[in-house]
């Protein structure tokens, strides 16, 4: 992989992260991050949709009249989302139930259309595909971090396994209690805010003068 392509793939992980730098896709980051499992499934679904919508739109970009590009993008993205939805229903039905409408709402996720508009319509298919994967994973990274803290502090579990109490160690017996606020969306917003805070304080070029 050339240096340039590698940058498309890894750029969105940190310096150009869709959630904490471009502030896109916040609503689903708040909605699906109560538990780790749905967060990871959501991250993979968004990655698949972003990658393939980027690929398809990049292939179509030269024959596509600019006036109808939005409707074509919508058709492509909607098709992909329905595909993902069906796959989730077939293989991980429980998680699909937990995610409920948020799988369908990937269509409205700003990251997907944002990448198509900003990147795929001006770049080749391979670069677009990599950019899609990079942005999906960059989004997923934040989702997983948020979900990790929310599940650990809010429910005392990780992937559904209780980690704060077992046979030889029980934190609840010492007077610990789960933080109910973590189960509410506002706390996810505060965690995202904290991530942005730490990220900016470490990246000097992101700080506004």
């Amino acid at each position, binding site marked *: 992989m050339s240096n340039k392509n590698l940058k498309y793939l890894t750029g969105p992980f940190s310096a150009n992260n869709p959630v904490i730098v471009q502030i896109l896709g916040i609503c689903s980051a708040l909605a699906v991050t109560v538990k780790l499992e749905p967060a990871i499934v959501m991250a993979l679904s968004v990655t698949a949709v972003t990658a393939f919508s980027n690929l398809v739109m990049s292939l179509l970009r030269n024959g596509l009249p600019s006036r109808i590009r939005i409707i074509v993008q919508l058709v492509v993205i909607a098709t992909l989302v329905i595909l993902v939805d069906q796959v989730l229903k077939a293989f991980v039905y429980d998680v699909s139930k937990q995610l409920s409408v948020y799988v369908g709402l990937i269509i409205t996720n700003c990251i997907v259309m944002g990448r198509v508009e900003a990147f795929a319509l001006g770049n080749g298919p391979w670069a677009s595909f990599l950019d899609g994967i990079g942005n999906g994973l960059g989004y997923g990274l934040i989702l997983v971090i948020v979900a990790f803290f929310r599940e650990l502090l809010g429910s005392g579990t990780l992937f559904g396994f209780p980690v704060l109490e077992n046979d030889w160690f029980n934190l609840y017996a010492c007077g*610990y*209690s789960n933080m*109910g*606020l973590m189960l509410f969306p506002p706390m996810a917003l*505060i965690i995202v805010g904290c991530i942005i805070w730490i990220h900016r304080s470490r990246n000097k070029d992101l700080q506004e003068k």
Partner: protein
Amino acid sequence: MSKLRNLVDKMKPTFSKGGKLSFLASTFEAFETFLFVPNTTTAKGAHIRDCNDMKRTMIMVIVALLPAFVFGCWWTGEQVAEACGLEWTLWNSFWYGFVRILPMVAVSYIVGLAIEFYFAQVRGHEVNEGFLVSGLLIPMVMPVSTPLWMVGVATAFAVIFGKEVFGGTGMNIFNPALLARAFVFFAYTPFISGEKVWYSDWTMMGAEKLSTDAITGATALEKLATSNAEVLQGTLTQATLGWEPLDAFFGFIPGSFGETSTLAILIGAAVLLFTGIASWRTMFSVFVGGLAMGYLFQVLGVTTYPAWWHLIVGGFAFGAVFMATDPVTSAQTNKGKYIVGFMTGALAVLIRVVNPAYPEGMMLAILFMNALAPLVDYFVVEANIKRRKNRVKTIK
């Protein structure tokens, strides 16, 4: 005194720029101004200065809080003595409550001040004094049975997300002490209004066996919220309610540590008003707002008890005197103070009566109006500009 002054002066170069411990400059500055009134004067422009700087102001608020604090100590001990069937003297009860609350006060001060000092140091600011009051308010608005680590977490949350992210003391949108309470309320609900509060679980206080009929488990507000049905059926009596208005006024009702005694709070209010620290406009209009809303519900037949009961139960008086008047988060303009105060009181009663999930509406009402206060100020200022512009036109 002069020896202390000499000592401080001797230490000063070490902490000044270029000194060995210059990274602790803010900390040193904080302690120096704590010991001695700073003699720096404003260099530019016209300023009216009096000797009452921020540290002195905050100490006055703490003095105003003392009556409620002392009463809270005594009343805590008194309730425990009653529950355990013990005969305690005035002093015994006070001492018991004092020992119970002291760790909470210590935790809130240590956590809060540590964070404040850290941020001041990193930013190169002076350490601000605002937390001297918040640190005492935080334990006073919580049940005395709140676990210490919870007090610490709530304080940290309130100071970091309520204050430091906005730029420190004077920049905060929300009252930090109330934010700490709101945090515990939403994060650890059973510990602030539920089965983990000591009124519900007396074993927490060492009462092994007790006659459950002697002690009621619900706070006065919860009783009030659930009493309407009984009133309609005609079964509500003074006994089922568990308290009389006079009890509530003097503070002989269950509740958070410092909020129960309206009398003690009014003494504090007198101190605040006499020294001119709190705004009488806000304080007065909060009570008027609560009363007006209470009467409205009474006239509409939603509630059957007198409207003024709202002012003496729960945290209404405490919130009105010590929280709503916070000079930072309340409105800045005089007209705005009337509006924000009135709406705080009205909203508190509205939440209490209409939403049974939140028996105490004062906390949410104040926080909500904290958020709206800048908007109210904006419209007051705009209206003033408009009025004066019109005046200019007519002269032409």
